[in-house]
């Protein structure tokens, strides 16, 4: 997150993708949330030295991105942003685990490198799944789906409020940060002495905005609860979507497809 404005632009772009109109966008949000959860659970339940069996799971984000007509390059760049922390923790594996697992053209591949690659692949898979869910569904429908799956209404209301004011306040914070940037030559004046009042003023404006918002809400008949959204019965396509992916992902979890394919190919070679 280099700058507030950059991050905000990223956020808005992801948000706009949810406005698409494909088969996947029209599915019930609950179906997509469920499929994503199954996917993530399948991926993280593999043993730590598992690498090849994880590869077929690329099917899920790839098919969703293709059918949902999402920009693959953009999502990939977002996935890359998440790597630093995982790399920082995972990079110790190759140095601590030096047991050679198998040989590949004379080079011994140690368990550490295998588990490191496995961590990287899992990160890519889980992050891609989460971003795809957001890009195909949008935040408000996801909230609604979560309420349908048992999330407390108070928390859902908090999420919706946050989502409504996120853009406004991030814009405001971004303006303040930019103003400070333009007045701080050579990095001077970017310390705590200016940071605390900047945040304090932002907080005060936020608070006043909340009071105005509250009055406006009261004037429109707010009684402590947001009106419930219209509920839709899940249709046949939603059911098919969950069943299809559930069955496929669990099958892929149970049998190692690349190893089967590899056996097939090496079998024909002899």
């Amino acid at each position, binding site marked *: 997150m280099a700058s*507030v404005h950059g991050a905000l632009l*990223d*956020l808005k772009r*992801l948000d706009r993708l949810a406005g698409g109109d*494909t*088969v996947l966008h029209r599915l019930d949000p609950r179906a997509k949330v469920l499929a994503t959860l199954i996917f*993530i659970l399948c991926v993280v339940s593999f*043993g730590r030295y598992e690498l090849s*069996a994880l590869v*077929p799971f*690329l099917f899920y984000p*790839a*098919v969703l991105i*293709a059918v949902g*007509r999402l920009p*693959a390059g953009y999502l990939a760049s977002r*996935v890359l942003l*998440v790597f630093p922390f*995982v790399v920082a*923790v*995972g990079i*110790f594996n190759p140095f601590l685990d030096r047991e050679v697992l*198998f040989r590949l053209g004379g080079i011994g591949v140690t368990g*550490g490198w*295998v*588990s490191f690659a*496995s*961590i990287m692949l*899992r*990160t890519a898979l*889980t992050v891609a799944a989460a971003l795809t869910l*957001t890009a195909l569904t949008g935040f408000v429908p996801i909230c609604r789906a979560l309420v349908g799956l048992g999330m*407390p209404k108070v*928390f859902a209301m*908090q*999420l919706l409020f*946050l989502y409504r*004011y*996120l853009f406004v306040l*991030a814009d405001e*914070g*971004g303006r303040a940060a930019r103003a400070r940037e333009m007045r701080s030559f050579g990095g001077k004046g970017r310390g*705590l002495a200016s*940071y*605390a009042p900047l*945040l*304090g003023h932002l907080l005060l404006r*936020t*608070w006043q905005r909340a*009071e105005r918002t*509250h009055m406006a*809400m009261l004037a429109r008949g707010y009684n402590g609860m947001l009106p419930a959204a219209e509920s839709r019965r899940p249709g046949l396509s939603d059911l*098919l979507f969950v069943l299809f992916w559930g069955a496929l992902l669990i099958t892929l979890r149970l049998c*190692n497809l690349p*190893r*089967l*394919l*590899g*056996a097939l190919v*090496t079998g024909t070679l002899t």
Partner: protein
Amino acid sequence: MHMADALLSPSVGGAMWAVSAGAIAWGSARLGRESDDRIAPLMGVLGGFLFAAQMINFSIPGTGSSGHLTGGLLLAILLGPSPAFLTVASVLVVQALFFADGGLLALGCNIFNLGVIPAFIVYPLLYRRLIGPAPGPRREAAVTLFAALCAMQLGALCVVLETTLSGVSELSLVKFLALMLPIHLAIGAVEGAVTLAVVSFLRKARPELLARRAHAEAAPSLKPFLAAALVCALLVAGGISRFASDKPDGLEWSVAGAAGNAEPVALHGVAAYLHALQGKLAWFAEYRMPAGEGVAAQQAGPGVAGVLGTLITLIIVVAVAALLRRMKRGGAAPEA
């Protein structure tokens, strides 16, 4: 300090999800009973504030690095535990969905580390107890710094515990602790300094905001926490026992693998190797992988076939995606 999905095992992730979901339900119920309906828009807008504040950095003199506010403790001081917790949790949900910070399975861990710890543990048990009814500036400074340090250290400790219990990373508990705790000591000091500076700014600018919290504060009961901790401990213990019981499987595996290799076929060179490999692989294909993280080295499998198969799978994935995309352009609407 965001945890990531890739470093978690399902049992740890699920356990932390259960704890965090319980905390959200409990906090929501507490908030639902509160009569002040101004709190809902305030929480929402403050969540937006927190989001913006986390993106603005300030430079730390003498180090060349920069820091930013995390905000759990600040919000707890301003709003009280439950609203602060829900606000932080909602920000984390948005970050998980839009920035994939951490991820969806790790969301439970993150909500616990960054939300439950400052709002429900450090604030009521440390900050409220130590700060007293009318603190002087020195006492306030000391208590705020100490509370922020404790919150960060506890959070880092939880990250380490969650990662180690998951068993995906190779780092040992002690080494990881030695790595994380000093870093988070520094981060905690920064957090404390910023929290203190913002609170004293508010005290000068609008003292009534802080006074509002000071008297309307009921001491929270500890029971829900103990219950949650117990549930968490049981779930994690369940995960560990499963981990332990997988080990014999691994042993059987290696014995069986050795037996499978000793095939009496008189072939030489590459052909012999491939043949042995094939026999082994066919046997592999029969065997359903046990779903456990304890089965270690034997699962990685032999090199050539695994790599080939992986490549083929990758090619298929790319081809299917490209095909679907092209069909889409052509106007057909395939069912997914």
